């Protein structure tokens, strides 16, 4: 069986099983993040916690349209990416708790999840910084003459980092299999997109590189799926990178420490009226793919998984302090990091 024939190849028209998976994954992400917010308030999670509540359709639709082996990179707002790629909710929550059982052994935290085994190449904290990594992952695919596709996921704010232009040019120039996926939630921290970007139709930037691009409704999981599926096909079959702009909204502040006072309540309500979970559920119920009972069963299952994840995280051991210098190098020449902060003990 070749890669292309893999049963894990996303179908042209999603079947019931895939649609239900998408729905359940969106519910899982929503509930995971709501729980994470609670745990943050309780002091179980430190650092920054960025929630993607409201953006689930963009995250799930795009990842569903790739094969599980296609590498992706993301920003610090990436709990959903890890969960959609199949990382154990318990291991993700444990990472947020800074425990040794976390996906990165407690070294990364909420902003730096990674699950290399699942080809999720990580969440990064420097805006724009992860974009060229996806180009490099696409380069490796092309170098090895494989048929994978790399996807860079980033925000509307990151579009204004010079590195995006550099990355898009190289991908187009060398015909690398890359999807540039802009999750346009219309804000970079407190700055609305029209105060940061001279051209707010972000997908138009692709034109400068002769790159196909599409703007789509990021609140509609099926629209996102279709758009990314076509972009991935172009990358796989024609070696042609694309840019996809998914328009969505984050319901919460930039992070848990953002009081979120600058955005109008009316604007929030307008987006929430098109909530991606609610609208997709309605579609599935209408088609008969979902019934009131099966929807309830999904919610219950998710609830149990979240409960279990939180229990797993809180019962997991702390990272032993002796392991502080582990993983700095492949072959450390010393396990005693210089610096008397640890040396004198």
């Amino acid at each position: 069986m070749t890669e292309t024939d893999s049963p894990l190849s996303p179908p042209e028209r999603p079947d019931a099983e895939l649609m239900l998976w998408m729905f359940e994954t969106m519910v899982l992400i929503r509930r995971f993040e709501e729980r994470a917010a609670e745990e943050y308030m309780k002091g179980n999670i430190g650092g920054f916690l960025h929630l993607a509540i409201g953006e689930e359709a963009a995250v799930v639709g795009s990842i569903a349209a790739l094969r599980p082996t296609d590498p992706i990179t993301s920003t610090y707002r990436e709990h959903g990416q890890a969960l959609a790629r199949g990382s154990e909710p318990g291991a993700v929550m444990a990472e947020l708790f800074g425990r040794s059982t976390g996906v990165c052994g407690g070294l990364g935290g909420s902003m730096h999840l990674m699950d290399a085994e699942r080809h999720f190449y990580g969440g990064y904290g420097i805006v724009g910084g992860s974009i060229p990594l996806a180009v490099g992952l696409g380069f490796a695919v092309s170098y090895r003459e494989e048929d994978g596709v790399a996807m860079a996921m980033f925000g509307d704010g990151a579009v204004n980092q010079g590195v995006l232009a550099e990355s898009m040019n190289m991908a187009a120039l060398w015909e690398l299999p890359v999807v540039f996926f802009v999750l346009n939630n219309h804000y970079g921290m407190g700055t609305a997109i029209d105060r940061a970007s001279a051209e707010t139709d972000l997908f138009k930037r692709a034109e400068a590189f002769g790159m196909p691009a599409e703007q789509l409704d990021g609140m509609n999981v099926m629209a996102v799926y279709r758009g990314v599926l076509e972009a991935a096909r172009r990358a796989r079959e024609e070696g042609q990178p694309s840019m996809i702009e998914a328009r969505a909204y984050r319901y919460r502040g930039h992070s848990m420490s953002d009081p979120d006072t600058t955005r109008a309540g009316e604007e929030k309500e307008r987006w929430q009226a098109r909530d991606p979970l609610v609208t997709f559920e309605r579609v599935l119920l209408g088609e008969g793919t979902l019934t009131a009972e099966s929807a309830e069963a999904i919610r219950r299952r998710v609830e149990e998984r979240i409960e279990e994840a939180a229990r797993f995280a809180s019962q997991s051991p702390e990272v032993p302090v002796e392991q502080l210098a582990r993983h700095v190098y492949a072959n450390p020449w010393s396990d005693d990091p210089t610096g008397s902060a640890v040396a004198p003990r």
Partner: protein
Amino acid sequence: MTTESAPAPGASAAEEPRPVSYREALTQAMREEMERDPDVFVIGEDVGQYEGAFKVTRGLLREFGERRVVDTPISEAGFVGLAIGAAMAGLRPVVEIMTVNFSIVAMDQIVNNAAKVRYMFGGQVACPVVIRMPGGAGHQLAAQHSHSLEAWYTHVPGLKVVAPATPLDAKGLLKSAIRDDDPVIFLESEGLYAKKGPVGGEDELVPLGRAAARRAGSDCTVVAVGRMVWIALAAAEELAKEGIECEVIDPRSLRPLDMDTPAESVKRTNRAVVVEEGWPECGVGANLAARIYEQCFDWLDAPIGRVSAADVPMPYAKNLERAALPQAADVAVAVRRALGR
């Protein structure tokens, strides 16, 4: 952490009726300098409407308008370069980079342009730009958001580098930096924004290149940078209970560096410990130690102790982060060792 309020010892403080936070001291400095000089403007991400990620620019947009308080896209290389160009044209930009970590994106502009234009062009232009940014760790922000880059910037001739530890210095040094005709890298500490203390008035500047003694003592000189001043003072209090009196010196400005103050102290105490929040290799502490050896070798009774962060990227887990950061107990250990105890 050392964010609890304590009076700032040393430094010729003009008494103010109300203690002011380090954050507000910085705001005052910008406001006063903007009122004084119409060429001064503030630029950076979320400095206007959002009033700064750490609220240091609070009220400035309301007072001075969008012409002089400029919200930028997330384009550090772009807006830092823009500010350097504006400075070459004679304006006095005060750039806020949201945190020191993001200045790495703008490093080319800072090192290749800001630090070079005066020299490379034979003194034809000045570059009076101030680049403010908070740094440091301690909030579980992990590897990419916890940098202390004092050493990187101090390495570069053409830049001036300051790291205030008190509200009084935050205000006085920022005012000096804004009036200075050279590029000044102004390193704030996230952990100090809430710290309160007296500040100077409109015309009280703290000159660049002058260290301050924060505590007098005869047994060991502790030279500490930025937030580490407070760690050193906490250690000194502990050690005092054991009968060890530390003299704590705050360089305040790393370039130009006042070596007279620490050297004079070491010649009296005959022992020295240097404390920094950054990494140990080629760090600010290594530099301070080398300079003390050069000037005080014959007076030293023990090797200079160095306290720094552990030589690792910053981990997320709270217990690991704590272990990676210099604590007062680490300073105390280094001082005792210097005293042979």
